[in-house]
């Protein structure tokens, strides 16, 4: 007995990159947590900076308007205001132990305050560093171990190095010729940091040789919006204009790569990590870049390849990725924060606990119980057993899935099959049934047998789909035939006349489109011909 074939629509050409790469799967696994509203929108004021605390549980600090907000790292709610400035706040930065937080304001002040304020010290600065003549847009603590200094940069194009305890500017670094808007401290050394400015230059500073000026100068060729050190400390990434550049600092400031896939100004960069399985290369570093065009792109700087990109509906201003790889936060120009978390596996936590206390190896597995016939599971044992190499497999015969119209077609009830397909949602199935009816030479007979309601269904379908390019070959001819055949029925019913009117409108619209397409072709084809001659 030959197998039975259900009626299938024609195959569509498939895009070759339909499947998700493991990398995109990873980035898609960041989901908005349930307990946070989909968009934690509070105002229309842009979120200027985002920063994660370097120590667990990795609290998040965000600067928005005149305030600095803190989000507890475990749950990210509720947010609490921890500082309020006289002017718009910018560039929050945690100290390396996560106890203190520093931020600048647009009047030029740099504020240092407690990251977890108690009720007593609420909203009070511990230190206020004054010295910038214009807005302080860059405030950074050194990242390695130095707890007593920080550096700041301002719109007065000066970079200052501060002793926090004494509220004293140790020295000012001159060299930039425009606003200093960004910078980063080296992850390996407390003395090295980098600053970027709107004069297209990135300057590398060493506080040990502060008198010499900058150690190195790089030219980004666009106003620099963001600079970060890559984890090795030997590479830096700079963003400005529509592109991101990777520089080799140790190798004398050599440009390694320029990533130019954003369409608008790249506003912020941060380091991300891809965690996959266990093994040597379980963790891989990525650069996350966000831009005003609403895209977040993930860049693999070891292969110089974009591995993932994500579209957001608003211009993006800032991005942060938590050091434990569980949270990704993006702040937009309209005040929305897109927070997404990834479920970290429970086992890994357990393991880390075990390791901490040092008896990870001692924990032994519970002994497997031997099943006895007294237990119900005894009678179900072995059902999930996988076949061995040499086992003789008996496959259950694959059942052919038949839709309603397939069954009706098998019974030669053609009109009912057509109506059943029309009642379905998928137009490609309807067209497949129509093609099968053509192959049986029964389509026109079916059309002539349709009653009022069913004819209305068909007319509705024709109106909707007959101008779709994929079905137009069959459906435009069919529509013409249907109108010819059922002219009397259509005239007699108001509903059908409505369908016809709609159909007419669609056909006219389609003709207009065709006309304009022809015009475009007329414009292009001489150009193509000229181009071909060269």
């Amino acid at each position, binding site marked *: 007995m030959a197998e*039975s074939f259900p009626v299938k629509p024609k195959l569509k050409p498939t895009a070759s990159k339909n499947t998700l790469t493991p990398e995109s799967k990873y980035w898609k696994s960041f989901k908005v947590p349930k307990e946070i509203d989909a968009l934690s929108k509070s105002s229309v004021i842009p979120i200027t900076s985002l920063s994660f605390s370097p120590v667990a549980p990795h609290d998040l600090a965000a600067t928005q308007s005149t305030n600095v907000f803190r989000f507890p790292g475990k749950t990210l709610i509720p947010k609490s205001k921890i500082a309020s400035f006289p002017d718009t706040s910018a560039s929050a930065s945690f100290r390396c132990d996560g106890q203190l937080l520093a931020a600048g304001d647009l009047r030029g002040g740099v504020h240092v305050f407690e990251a977890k304020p108690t009720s007593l010290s609420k909203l009070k600065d511990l230190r206020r560093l004054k010295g910038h003549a214009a807005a302080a847009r860059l405030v950074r603590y050194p990242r390695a171990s130095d707890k007593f200094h920080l550096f700041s940069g301002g719109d007065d194009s000066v970079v200052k190095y501060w002793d926090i305890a004494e509220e004293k500017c140790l020295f000012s670094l001159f060299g930039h010729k425009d606003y200093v808007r960004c910078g980063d401290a080296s992850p390996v050394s407390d003395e090295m940091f980098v600053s970027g400015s709107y004069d297209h230059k990135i300057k590398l500073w060493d506080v040990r040789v502060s008198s010499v000026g900058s150690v190195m100068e790089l030219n980004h060729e666009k106003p620099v919006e963001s600079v970060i050190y890559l984890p090795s400390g030997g590479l830096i990434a700079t963003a400005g204009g529509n592109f991101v550049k990777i520089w080799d600092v140790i190798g004398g400031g050599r440009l390694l790569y320029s990533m130019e896939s954003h369409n608008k100004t790249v506003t912020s960069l941060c380091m991300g990590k891809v965690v996959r399985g266990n093994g040597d290369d379980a963790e891989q570093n990525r650069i996350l870049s966000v831009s005003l065009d609403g895209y977040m792109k993930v860049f693999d700087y070891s292969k110089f390849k974009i591995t993932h990109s994500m579209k957001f509906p608003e211009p993006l201003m800032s991005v942060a990725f938590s050091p434990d790889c569980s949270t990704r936060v993006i702040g937009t120009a309209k005040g929305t924060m897109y927070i997404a978390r990834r479920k970290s596996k429970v086992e890994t936590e357990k393991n880390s606990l075990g390791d901490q206390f040092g008896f990870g190896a001692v924990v032994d597995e519970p002994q497997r119980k031997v099943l006895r016939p007294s237990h119900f599971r005894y009678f179900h044992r072995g059902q999930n057993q996988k076949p061995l190499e040499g086992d003789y497999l008996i496959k259950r015969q694959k059942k052919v899935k038949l839709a309603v119209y397939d069954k009706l077609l*098998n019974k030669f009830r053609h009109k009912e099959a057509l109506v059943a397909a029309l009642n379905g949602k998928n137009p490609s199935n309807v067209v497949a049934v*129509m093609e099968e009816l053509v*192959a049986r*030479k029964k389509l026109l007979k079916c059309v002539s047998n349709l009653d009022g309601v069913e004819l209305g269904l068909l007319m509705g379908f024709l109106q909707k789909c007959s101008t779709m390019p994929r079905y137009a070959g*069959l459906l435009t*001819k069919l529509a013409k035939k249907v109108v010819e055949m059922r002219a009397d029925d259509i005239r007699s019913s108001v509903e059908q006349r409505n369908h016809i009117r709609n159909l007419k409108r669609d056909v006219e619209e389609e003709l207009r489109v065709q006309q304009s397409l022809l015009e475009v072709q007329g414009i292009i084809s001489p150009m193509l011909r000229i181009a071909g001659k060269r």
Partner: protein
Amino acid sequence: MFTGGKSFVSSPPAFSNDAKRLLVCTGNTVSIFSTSTGLQTGELEGHGAKVTSVIVVPASTPASKVLCYCWTSSLDGNIKYWDFAAPELMKTIDIRFPIHSMVIPSLLSQTTESSGKIHDVFAYVSTEDVKLKADKTISVRGQIQKCNLTKSRLVGGLELAKIERPGSIIISPSGNQIGVYEKCKLLIWEIPAKDLDQHCFKKIRLHHTKSFTAMAFHPTERILAAGDVTGRILVWRGVGRKTFSNGKLINGGLNEDEDDSPGVRSGDDADSCTTWHWHSSQVNVLFFSSDGAYLYSGGREGVLVVWQLDTGKKKFLPRIGSPLLYYINSPDPTLSSISCTDNRIQLLRMPSMEIVRSISGIKLPSSRAEMYDAYGSGVVFNHTAGLIAVPTENYRVQFYSLFDDREVSEVQICERNHHPSDDITVKVNLVALSQDGSTMSTVETRLPEEGIGGLVSLKFWACDSQSKQFSLSTIIYEPHREAAISSIAFRPASHMVVSSSHGGDFKVWVRRQEIHPKDQNTGWTCHAVGSYKKKPLTAPITTLSFVGKSSYLVSASRGADPLLTMWSMSKLCTIWSYRLHAEAIASSMLNSTFAVLAPSKLLKSTGSTAGTSQGAEGAILLFNAENPVPFATWSVSKAQGGRLSFIQSSPFSDNDVADTTTAGELLAYVSGCHEYVVLSPHGDQDSKLSISRRRNSSSLDETERFGYASIYGELPEFTMEIDQTPFESMPQSEKTWKTIFSGPSHSLPPLPKLCSDFLESLLERRSTVVE
């Protein structure tokens, strides 16, 4: 030279007594197939014309089941008696009339009583009067005659009936009735148990308004079923009760009332007639089950219907795939066979009606294919492997091995349910195979309904090198807009295909890997489009072929002015030409010879083949390119729609029969009805003889695995040897038998060990020392 591709379904097959073999009439021979493997095991050769019936002598006792005797009849007027186990011809009877059908009632009726003497065996044959054949005015040509097989002669002066066309005779399973159908009536004779030379027969007729196409007798009762062209099945009960029961009416009062026989036409001798109507077109198969409870019917729809005789309830075996022709049951109640028009015999496992195996020959060309012959190709050859690819009616392509005379595989081209009774709307038009056979490309066409919904799709198939199964690689819908494809061709030794259309353009398709070697996708893509002055690419020239490795081109054109022309490519001029209609051209790959298939009706006008024998419809002419005189000719039959090709005889090279000098190429000819001949083009007589078909005469012992073994494989050999090691006797304990049984039951010693101790304990132990 050998032939093959015979039709398996020209006449009903027959099972041997042990149901392990199936005897199938294949042209002039009877082929014996094993039912367990589906392979051919033997052949009975001897008839000079088509064999029309084969009857296996049934076993009267269980012991005689091993006997393998059969009668065959043929159109050459001979009836032969065979021992098909050997196989060996035992007897020949010449009756000088072409026999269209034969039945032997006495084989079925159990007359061989142990005491009685052996009666003469009579056969009833349906013959054609050849003397009247010339006279076209007389339309009644068929006769039903009686033949004494024991005395090897026709029974003179006895002619049961004259019928218009010699048809088949149907016999009842008990052997006491035979019948024929002719147009709207059935003729039934009763055969007495003790048949003599001169016996007067009683005959009844049953009438109907439509032409009959099938009939069957009930095994035990007086029930007769007949099917007509409209698909109705008529079942008469109590047929011939009046006529055949010698006037002694069992229930006289009932039968004399004329009105009490519902449905029976006046004058017919039957009690009642009921009509069943399920089939939508003519009924070809009618068969009662051996217990008489069920009636099997089948027809054009390709559905086997099982009717419960008492209630009329139906059960179906659908989607057999092509119209049914015969249904035969076997002595084994679990096995029966259906013959289908697509040259396939399906073996059914019976109560469940599953198809367990099928024996298939080359698919026959579609009867209605001529309508669409304008764009359609027939058989395609695979030059190297000796395969042919045949597009079939149910949207498949069948691969058939010429050397093995056996189906190799089938590929479903279009995934659509095939309804055999529909007129053709979807058709596989063109098939092309690449030279190495690894790629196939097919074109299928769906004909539009009043201008709506026509579709041409071009498909590329890739052959898996391990399983040799073709799998779909690429589909291209409407490759040339709406225009139909006129032909496709592979470029030798590269993955490139050219398709030309009636719309005036041609396209070059390449495999994507050729362009982008790193691309994982193995699909095909269009590489270039071209056209010649926007003219449709359907010239009157139908065939173009380069002649081997020489610089010659041969072209053939059809139409009103057919021409076969030889061109020299180096001089760009005609060398010679014939006014010859060429059906097919094949050119050798090795040397500058080529073969032309020319149908003879057009040949006669040129008068070039005077020597064609009678009955041949065409000739194969073998030319050398330089020489206009053919150096060899063969006359063949059914040249219309035939195909020619040179094939490599490399499959022989491993056999010792390979003729080293000329064995390079063989010429294969497939006729219009898909029978084929393979011959050596340069053949002297010796080399012709040396080519013989590889016979895979598999032995019958290859039994089918069934039951446990078919699921789990063979069990390891299990020996019934009993463990002979004796039980070691219990260590002589001082325990008395009472203490032996104390303790928990599971720690008791086994009974055989206990037994001796127990018995011992019962007996009084005599002290060893007798004083």
